[in-house]
């Protein structure tokens, strides 16, 4: 089984990258790979609660993310500095099972993977 880390670094609605990352992530998980995800930079905006994307006629990404553990994606990492720089605290996230990690831990996480996929 391959260790695959999805790195999602873009905000949810400005481009389709965040949505595509989620779809690819769920597909990989269905195929039984050791699938993990890291949210960093503007990617942390995907996790903000109270998203109401109906106002721009788009499906809510925030509402989809809590499905990750159901697909056996249980290792969900969030870069602490990215949260801090954007003034987002841990209790404002749509997922409560995330691991918030600093830059050094991100560095170690990358070094452990067989494959990195960046979105």
């Amino acid at each position, binding site marked *: 089984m391959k260790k695959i880390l999805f790195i999602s670094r873009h905000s949810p609605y400005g481009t389709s990258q965040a949505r595509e990352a989620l779809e690819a992530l769920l597909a990989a998980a269905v195929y039984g790979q050791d699938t993990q995800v890291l949210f960093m930079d503007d990617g942390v905006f995907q996790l903000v609660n109270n998203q109401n994307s109906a106002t721009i006629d788009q499906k809510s990404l925030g509402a989809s993310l809590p499905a990750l553990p159901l697909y056996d994606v249980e290792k969900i990492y969030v870069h602490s500095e990215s949260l801090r720089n954007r003034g987002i605290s841990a209790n404002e996230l749509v997922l409560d099972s995330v691991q918030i990690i600093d830059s050094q831990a991100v560095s170690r996480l990358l070094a452990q993977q067989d*494959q990195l996929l960046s979105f």
Partner: protein
Amino acid sequence: MSTLHTVNKSPFSHTALNSCLTVCGPDDGVILLEDGVYGAMASAPSHTQLKEILARGIRVYALKPDVDARGIGEKLMAEVELADYEKFVQLSVQHRCVQSWY
């Protein structure tokens, strides 16, 4: 070697290089390409951070065709090595994973 980081955005208008350098590990390499080559300039906002990475022994490359195309060859930091496409391919296979910062 563990991860080859590719950066293709200018540090004058994007944070991709900054993020890359923040999480770059000891066995990693960095290659700047497309507009990413502006990050090798001595005047770049990421200059100090790049110096620190180089001091830690991490090698940093800039893709020569992209440097030449932009006419910035004379303005680059001396420690940044120039790589041709062949070298880029070699680096890609020498590292276990490739992470694209864009």
